């Protein structure tokens, strides 16, 4: 018999951790609410016929947010055989709110009291037996993070599912409300199965919008139900939804008095840390210092050492030598040697060389995320983002984008407000992703070996562009209106678990190694072919690079980039191949400049790249590649999330346009300021661009003229 078990619980209570524990998979776990936006399925370890479904975290089963709808449709529509309700025991009162709702769904339920290790450590006691008696279902103490109790929970759920026993809702409300519910129940008893009675009577009482999707009522019955609700609302002087919310919490409060014994500490450690890191004066300097340190270590100091070694010694030296010697020994044709040594090893090696650096960066970001700091950053940034028309919630997609833009774009689903969401999708890829890191590292290493500010400056440029875009876009008709108010639960600080951090780092880094072996591998082969073959003297064959097909194509595109300072065919080709995957920008240079020929004493790649740019044009090249249209995978994600080509087109046009303008300004004015070039036509145009941007930012725009905007109600 096949059994389906759903994992349900509040956001950030450890559902995905338990899911991974139960199924042996390694789904993304983040220490902030809303990481899981879609349901995920897996098979229980050692039980092929048991499917586990991880539902997104929800606070309630009302039908207002996307996550709630996903969870609710699954519970009511697909009727799993059992529910594992994961309850964060450190925050039991709020978590049990959802428990009271799940109990009404008429499905056998097991409660997993998660994070019990933390509760016990703090000296609090929770009486699991009393809790079990109150809810009429098994309660198991667990610590999903440490892998304690998860299997017991699953086994209990399987037992319940096999028995097919329903967990009848045990909790009750005050007399007035119970009477009203009973009266509603009488009206619908013909149409509803007994185990779902409680659920539907409460939903009807709450005037739930979606309840009509499940069955239809005659207008006569509807009228009678309306009268019952109105009567109860009058008696209790509140609206029916609030009545139920309060009744649930009142029930939980009484329950908690019996089975939870708390030592009342004044301020928890989390609160104390929050006092410092979210302090009104210190918050931003602390954040800036943390990010600078992370980038400094992973890109500039430690990162350079490992990357130099992998690029010049490992790939440039050993592997190239072995491959050359091996191919010579078997007598391979020169073109094959060229393809393998220059094309594949040069190109793929150029990317793999940056993998250690990427791993160091991901390691630090994982620590920051896992300990709970990153969720605070959303709060810190809200104050700033709000001024620019975005909410702090937009920060989390951007944060994820610092690893990869694709999950970053998907993470915008946690933003309820549609305009906020679209705008976040448009700007989130401005934050340098892991694949752009090699570009930064290459340029910084080649042209700015002494300047430690260059790498972090790309991160801050990303944030600056997000802010600038926020201001400009908010003043267009597409996005006018206030961002939705910010409400977000913050996780407790905890010491990062080494296992979790390493899994995160590996999961993020793995994608790049896979990409290097697939997409980039193929692209390198193609680029090598195009750069080695061409028409010379009327014949097609191997030619000098400057006569190759690639040079021809590149020279054709190059004039577009000339005003930006990198109008060489190599830079043009690199930029275009970046659309396939951003690592290709670097791997293209690797193929073209023959990383294969580099030796330990002579880091060819860096030198060749350094020779192609000036400091200004290199910075401009870097900026353009940071901001322009992202890779195909991210474009695909944008299209999915935007729901069509129209918005995808707007997004890509905006991104590429902004990239072009920024790179133009940097190159034209940078050349005048730093390279002593005369103040010519280009510089004038650069100034015009700046003025245009400033005008777009500071013009007064009254959205009310065109469309009515729901303004946030201010209560003073």
């Amino acid at each position, binding site marked *: 018999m096949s059994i389906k078990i759903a994992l349900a619980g509040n956001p950030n209570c450890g559902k995905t951790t338990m899911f991974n524990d139960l199924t042996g998979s390694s789904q993304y776990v983040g220490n902030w609410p809303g990481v899981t936006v879609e349901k995920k399925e897996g098979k229980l370890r050692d039980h092929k016929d048991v499917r586990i479904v991880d539902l997104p975290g929800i606070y309630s089963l009302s039908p*207002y947010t996307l996550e709630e709808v996903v969870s609710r449709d699954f519970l009511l529509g697909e009727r799993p055989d059992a529910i594992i309700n994961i309850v964060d025991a450190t*925050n039991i009162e*709020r978590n049990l709110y959802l428990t009271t709702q799940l109990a009404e769904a008429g499905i056998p339920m097991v409660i997993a009291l998660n994070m019990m290790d933390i509760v016990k450590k703090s000296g609090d006691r929770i009486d699991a037996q009393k809790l079990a008696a109150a809810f009429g279902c098994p309660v198991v103490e667990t610590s999903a993070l440490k892998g304690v109790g998860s299997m017991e929970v699953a086994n209990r759920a399987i037992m319940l599912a096999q028995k097919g026993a329903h967990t009848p809702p045990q909790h009750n409300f005050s007399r007035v409300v119970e009477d009203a519910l009973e009266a509603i129940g009488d009206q619908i008893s013909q149409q509803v199965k007994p185990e779902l009675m409680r659920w539907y009577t409460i939903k009807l009482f709450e005037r739930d919008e979606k309840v009509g999707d499940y069955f239809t009522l005659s207008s006569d019955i509807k009228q009678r139900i309306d009268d019952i609700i109105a009567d109860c609302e009058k008696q209790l002087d509140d609206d029916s939804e609030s009545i139920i919310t309060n009744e649930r919490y009142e029930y939980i409060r009484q329950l908690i008095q019996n089975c939870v014994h708390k030592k009342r500490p004044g301020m928890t450690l989390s609160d104390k840390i929050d*006092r410092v890191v*979210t302090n009104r004066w210190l918050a931003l300097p602390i954040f800036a210092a943390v990010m600078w340190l992370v980038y400094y270590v992973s890109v500039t100091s430690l990162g350079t050492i490992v990357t130099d070694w992998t690029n010049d010694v490992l790939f440039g030296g050993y592997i190239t030598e072995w491959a050359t010697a091996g191919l010579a020994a078997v007598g391979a044709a020169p073109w094959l040697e060229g393809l393998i040594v220059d094309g594949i090893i040069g190109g793929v090696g150029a990317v793999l060389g940056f993998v250690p650096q990427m791993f160091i960066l991901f390691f630090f970001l994982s620590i920051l995320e896992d300990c709970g700091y990153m969720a605070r950053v959303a*709060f810190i940034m809200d*104050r700033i983002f709000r001024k620019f028309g975005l909410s702090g919630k937009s920060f989390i997609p951007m944060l994820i984008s610092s690893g990869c833009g694709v999950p970053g774009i998907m993470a915008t689903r946690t933003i309820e407000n549609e305009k906020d969401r679209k705008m976040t999708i448009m700007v989130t890829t401005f934050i340098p992703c892991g694949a752009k890191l090699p570009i930064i590292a290459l340029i910084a290493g080649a042209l700015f070996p002494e300047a430690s500010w260059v790498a972090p400056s790309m991160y801050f440029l990303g944030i600056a562009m997000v802010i600038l875009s926020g201001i400009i876009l908010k003043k267009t008709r597409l996005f006018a209106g206030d961002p939705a*108010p910010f409400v977000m*639960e913050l996780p407790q600080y905890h010491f990062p678990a080494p296992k979790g951090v390493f899994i995160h780092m590996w999961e993020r880094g793995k994608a790049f190694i896979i990409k290097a072996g697939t997409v980039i591998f193929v692209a390198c082969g193609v680029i090598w072919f195009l750069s080695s073959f061409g028409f010379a003297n009327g014949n097609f064959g191997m030619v000098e690079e400057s006569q190759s097909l690639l040079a021809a194509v590149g020279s054709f595109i190059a004039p577009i980039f000339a005003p930006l300072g990198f109008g060489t065919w190599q830079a043009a080709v690199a930029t275009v191949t970046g659309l396939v995957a951003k690592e290709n920008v670097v791997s293209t240079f690797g193929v073209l400049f023959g990383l294969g020929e580099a030796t330990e004493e002579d880091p060819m790649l860096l030198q060749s790249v350094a020779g192609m740019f000036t400091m200004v044009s290199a910075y401009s090249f870097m900026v353009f590649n940071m901001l322009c249209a992202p890779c195909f995978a991210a474009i695909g994600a944008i299209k999915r999330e935007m729901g069509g080509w129209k918005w995808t087109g707007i997004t890509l046009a905006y991104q590429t346009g902004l990239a072009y303008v920024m790179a133009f300004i940097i190159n034209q004015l940078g050349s005048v300021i730093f390279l002593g070039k005369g103040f010519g036509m280009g510089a004038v145009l650069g100034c015009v661009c700046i003025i245009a941007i400033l005008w777009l930012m500071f013009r007064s725009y009254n959205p009310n003229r065109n469309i009515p905007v729901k303004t946030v109600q201010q209560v003073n």
Partner: protein
Amino acid sequence: MANLEGGIIIMPLTFAPQGTINKIKQIKGKDDTRRFLGELGFTIGGDVTVVAEMGGNMIVNVKDARIAISKSMANRIMV
């Protein structure tokens, strides 16, 4: 700012000093805002403690959960 309502002084949460425990007296605003705040544990008669404040935005402790709310939200919670 503080006004008298039924003899009890009530004020928006944004006026509450850091570190003190306050009882929620009223939640204003549109229905779905009230509902969402309610689900998060902001219930009338419940306790709320201000942990940190930053330009009107606040981190508050309510039913042992730390919740970050923006100024416009905090202004709707009367204590």
